């Protein structure tokens, strides 16, 4: 299986553009300053600042339509920002787009593969377009097919006959053909079954840990961001609402969270008043606001008091659960809703305007 030794493969044969700007060796992979993008009346991305360190996995978490894909398209040079500036691998995304393209590998949300071609043909063509000679492109194709576990597939099989998981893995391989130092993965596991998802996660970890590739990952799955990312930015309606390591973000919310369920939103409100002062912070949430979440440092000590007070005002509890705060709580705190609930809304047009030109 797999790629040669563990050293970061940032140098080597690659035909890097001849502008080794000072920042190429910088420890920041992506720096964005007040990037914005408007489609008609829709503010898809709103004054986003980003500072992504090299060598880590950066998770970009948000619900459908939050602007994740739009931002990825901007940073990968296929969509111009309405305002702001950004550098990727030290190159300006607008003035030096060609250099950016050499430095990054991209797997977009809508897997873009020609279904009439075979995996090998796609990989070889990709390599050659990145300037490899034929034999080298063939060798790379063979190696990457091993890496993403597609080497055993019938080489004559056309991509149109691949399963969703196989297509994602091939798409990932295509993003790696030219040995990029930064890889953008836009919702790499959305719609995949758990096994395929685990395989992609494994590959992302290997890329990052073993090959030293910086990974910029967008996802709407809390678990994915939590498991993979060293650092997370949470985006909602085009704006970054929280930014930090998953642990630090969760600590900010509180040590533990207690979720209380009530019969209706009115009771939940009354309960919030009755419990005032017990928790460091509380928040109504859930469908129709029937849930009340309390963030505190010592749930076990406080629960009896909660029950006593609710008894005192004669409000019946319908459920109670204690958990450690998750990124969902971070999201809830920043936006007032749970990520899992936002996603039940139909995706709006902000994320993935397919094609390239957008509205002209």
């Amino acid at each position, binding site marked *: 299986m797999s790629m040669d030794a563990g050293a970061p493969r940032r140098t080597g044969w690659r035909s890097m553009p001849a502008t080794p700007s000072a920042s190429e060796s910088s420890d920041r992979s992506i720096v964005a300053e007040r990037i914005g993008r408007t489609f008609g009346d829709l503010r898809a991305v709103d004054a986003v600042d980003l500072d992504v360190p090299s060598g880590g996995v950066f998770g970009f978490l948000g619900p459908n339509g939050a602007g994740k894909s739009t931002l990825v398209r901007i940073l990968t040079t296929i969509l111009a920002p309405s305002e702001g500036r950004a550098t990727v691998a030290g190159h300006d995304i607008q003035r030096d787009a060609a250099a950016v393209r050499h430095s990054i590998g991209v797997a977009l949300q809508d897997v873009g593969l020609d279904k009439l071609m075979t995996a090998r043909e796609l990989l070889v063509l990709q390599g050659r377009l990145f300037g490899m000679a034929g034999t080298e492109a063939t060798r790379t194709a063979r190696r990457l097919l091993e890496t993403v576990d597609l080497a055993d597939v019938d080489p004559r099989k056309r991509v149109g006959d691949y399963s969703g998981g196989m297509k994602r893995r091939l798409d990932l391989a295509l993003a790696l053909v030219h040995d990029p130092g930064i890889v953008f993965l836009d919702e790499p596991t959305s719609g995949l079954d758990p096994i395929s998802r685990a395989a992609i996660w494994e590959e992302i970890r290997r890329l990052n840990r073993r090959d030293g590739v910086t990974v910029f990952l967008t996802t709407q799955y809390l678990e994915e961001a939590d498991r993979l990312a060293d650092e997370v930015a949470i985006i909602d309606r085009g704006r970054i609402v929280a930014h930090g390591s998953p642990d630090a973000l969760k600590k900010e919310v509180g040590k533990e969270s207690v979720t209380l369920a009530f019969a209706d939103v009115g009771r939940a409100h009354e309960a919030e008043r009755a419990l005032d002062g017990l928790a460091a912070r509380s928040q109504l949430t859930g469908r129709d606001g029937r849930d009340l979440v309390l963030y505190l440092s010592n749930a076990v000590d406080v629960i009896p008091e909660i029950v006593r007070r609710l008894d005192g005002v004669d409000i019946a509890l319908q459920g109670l659960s204690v958990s450690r705060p998750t990124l969902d709580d971070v999201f809830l705190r920043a936006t007032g809703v749970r990520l899992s609930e936002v996603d039940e809304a139909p995706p709006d047009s902000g994320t993935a305007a397919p*094609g*390239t030109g957008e509205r002209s």
Partner: protein
Amino acid sequence: MNDILLMIGRSLRVVLRQPAATLPSLAISVFFLFVYNSGLSSVADLPGFQGSYLAFILPVAIVSAAVSGAGLAGQELVRDVESGYFTKLLLTPAHRLSLIWGPMVAAATFLVVQVALIIVLAVILGLESATGLPGLVLVIVFAFFWGMAFAGYSVWIALKTRNAAAAQAATFAFFPLIFLSTTFVPEEYITSDWLRWAARINPTTYVFDAMRSLLIDGWQARPLLIGLAVVVGFATLTGGLALRAARRATQLTR
């Protein structure tokens, strides 16, 4: 340049994998040649008609092959845009215009092969070219330019609409181009005024004229120059539109 060759190679390979997209246009052209030649060849007995009807109808088969073959360019491009592969290619350092040239040249190659096959078939059926082999080659050149003009048009529509159905619908321009012309009889035999008028403003008429002059009358400067002006003019016009649409689609400045 290398990029363009790679993209052409890829387009050709992919086109060959879609017999459903390529064979019908060849079949239609052969149909024109056989059916019209068999059914209408007595037209050649009319007073004043010069040459064989086979030589007269051959340009119709050729232009039909060229126009429908060229439509492949737009169809291929729409296929790439719809699959998202177009975006994937935009993420490579490949020259932007190689993404357009691939389908264009593949379609052109395909139509030249098709046209050559049809001419060979006509020769087997007894075609005698008044200008010999050089004339037949020139007929292919005319077909090539006319096909490119139509390929430019189909690429333009494809990039404008990014929609397979629209690109498909756009190929219906094929019908007025082929039939509102001196398709079956020379102009002097067209009895309806509106059709004669339509034939005069239809650029295809001048392509037919040029090809027929080569096949029937021998070397004559006038129809060849007019025909050349028409095909080059149209190819330039639609090629320009296609390039502009391509720049827009790949530049993303807004």
